[in-house]
């Protein structure tokens, strides 16, 4: 696509990210004011900026509102089972290391039903780029409590208020071994775009959390207004603290939202370690994995 088209200020009718989307599937199922589409915009812009080979990309989603991202991007895309986007993506990456594999899913999918896979993929340092859209609630099923739902907010399964503590996802994945950890809100579209681009440069398990509004369920039930109110809220409450200790970035219902790039470190990824181990132990008997296309 010509650059002139992408950044054409006089022709706003052309959406620059349109070539990355399956326009035959529009409109999307997402509600007015939902933040997921905003994150997809940032993702598409990051693809443009990074000049990454689109054919090398595979995008994997689990189940939920964010799980539908796989269905809207014009890439090899996999809408898998609930919680299992990461292990599916692991199989793609290990069988074809040339692929750039993105996991794009929601907070409930990745950290509740898929929580075990999340920490183990981070521990192994599988070379995956995980974009976790955190709307603080189970939205597709109608507003139930998620592991990320802040205490004292109300959900359909905690109608008298959530009393169980929430996960601090950046802290969790850093402890498990992620090499790149960042958090933004859907208010921070440029920063988010930049972070996704940075994650593409990293080899290893990268995790970007995007705080995103669910006006239909979380906002409404907690009297937090609509999508625009969410943007105002994010703008007001967000504090950019790059390098902040992840132990200090837990979210509360109305408190500060610490955003920024928290972790950017080097650790050899799973396949690098695997090859090194085999080469050392097996010497000449080690055979590098050939391309697995068994056609």
């Amino acid at each position: 696509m010509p650059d002139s088209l992408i950044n054409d200020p006089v022709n706003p009718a052309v959406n620059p990210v349109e070539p990355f989307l399956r326009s035959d599937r529009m409109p999307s199922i997402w509600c007015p004011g939902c933040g997921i589409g905003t994150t997809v915009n940032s993702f598409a812009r990051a693809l443009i900026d990074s000049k990454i080979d689109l054919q090398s990309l595979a995008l994997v989603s689990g189940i939920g509102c964010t799980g539908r991202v796989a269905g809207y991007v014009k890439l090899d895309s996999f809408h898998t089972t609930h919680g299992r986007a990461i292990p599916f993506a692991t199989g793609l990456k290990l069988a074809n290391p040339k692929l750039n594999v993105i996991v794009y899913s929601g907070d409930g999918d990745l950290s509740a039903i898929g929580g075990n896979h999340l920490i183990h993929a981070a521990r192994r340092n599988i070379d995956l780029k995980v974009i976790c859209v955190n709307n603080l609630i189970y939205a597709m099923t109608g507003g139930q409590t998620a592991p990320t739902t802040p205490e004292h907010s109300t959900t359909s399964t905690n109608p008298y208020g959530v009393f169980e503590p929430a996960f601090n996802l950046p802290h969790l994945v850093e402890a498990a071994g992620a090499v790149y950890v960042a958090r933004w809100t859907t208010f921070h579209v440029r920063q988010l775009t930049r972070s996704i681009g940075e994650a593409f440069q990293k080899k290893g398990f990268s995790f970007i959390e995007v705080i995103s509004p669910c006006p239909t369920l979380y906002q409404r039930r907690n009297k937090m207004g609509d999508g625009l109110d969410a943007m105002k809220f994010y703008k007001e409450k967000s504090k950019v603290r790059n390098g902040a200790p992840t132990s200090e970035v837990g979210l509360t219902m109305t408190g500060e939202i610490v955003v920024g790039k928290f972790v950017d470190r080097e650790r050899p990824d799973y396949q690098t370690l695997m090859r090194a181990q085999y080469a050392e132990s097996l010497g000449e008997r080690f055979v590098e994995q050939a391309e697995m296309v068994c056609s």
Partner: protein
Amino acid sequence: MKADPRGVLTGVHFMDGDHACCEGALAAGSRFAAGYPITPSTEVVERFASRVPTVGGTFIQMEDELAASITLQGAVWAGAKAFTVTSGPGFSLMMEHIGYAAMTETPCVFVDVQRGGPSTGLPTLPAQADMMQARWGSHGDYEIIALCPNSPQECFNLTIKAFNLAEEFRVPVMFMMDECVGHMTEKVVIPPADQIEVVPRRHTHKPVDEYLPYETNGDLVPEMAHAGEGYNFHITGLTHDERGYPNMTPQIQDKLVRRLQNKILQAADRIAMFEEEQLEGADVVVVSYGITSRVAQRAIEAARGRGLRVGKLRLITAWPFPDKKIRELAAKVKAFVVPELNLGQMVREVERAAAGQAKTFAVPHAGGGVHNPEDILKVIVEAGRCQTA
């Protein structure tokens, strides 16, 4: 197409069923396995973990069976032939992804080395009590293929067959071993690679702009593309149209689910494999599979020694169930005797297919060991006395 010689351990071996299954997978061209340790199946992946880096491939031990059973499917969509291996409790956890493989038509193999259940049951002792779970364990309507080896040699031969069927029909194939066969050591002959037939992926030859992931032409099995080839395809476990896009209308559901069933059912006769013996003129036919077929053989021979006319039908393919074969036999024989290491699973299928034309006798066993051949003999004798239905 012939097997890649790098994966074929040509020679004569004294090997157990678990190891033979691994060699079968390698001979079939599998270079990817994801697993989770569970007795009595672990030896399959232990051997794969040791062998695969010397032939170019990957084994990963996942955090649980849920992960293992979907990781392998990611590998398939990247071009690999892949499998996982488990036993009862792990097989239960894998059900979700057997459904996903059926729905997305991901060719792959699930090996289940059956042990006694329910729950943790008998980790080190045999059963054949997952037969119905293999067929019906995931929700929704779908068909799978299931094979039952009865020796280490068959663990090798039929694992190759399992991969071939998976590729031919784009279906998850259940490889239903049992603890006895898995842990039994016998001579296993592995032929040269050029004598091993391997079915390649049904990869599309269409240009990118003409390819639809779930378009079929006549034989009901669509062509595949792999991630990274530029097809920009979409795969989902939701009900989908030929483009692979979610489309949740009753019409699309009907069309899709019927095709998923019919691609197997219409080929059932071609898929069916048996071992038959003295069926002609038999009064009683013993229907068995897996380890029980070997135990039953003793009883069959003892019954013949007493002058009874006893035939043997060993099911090598358990699913799709060979209705036609049982129906044909039911018209000629007095009774079927079905010994199995469960309290009555495949016997129901025999009874259903016989449709009252012949009587059906179960010889149940709760597992933990194999039948005493005497117990099978008693039922054969009883069945021989019964009046024709």
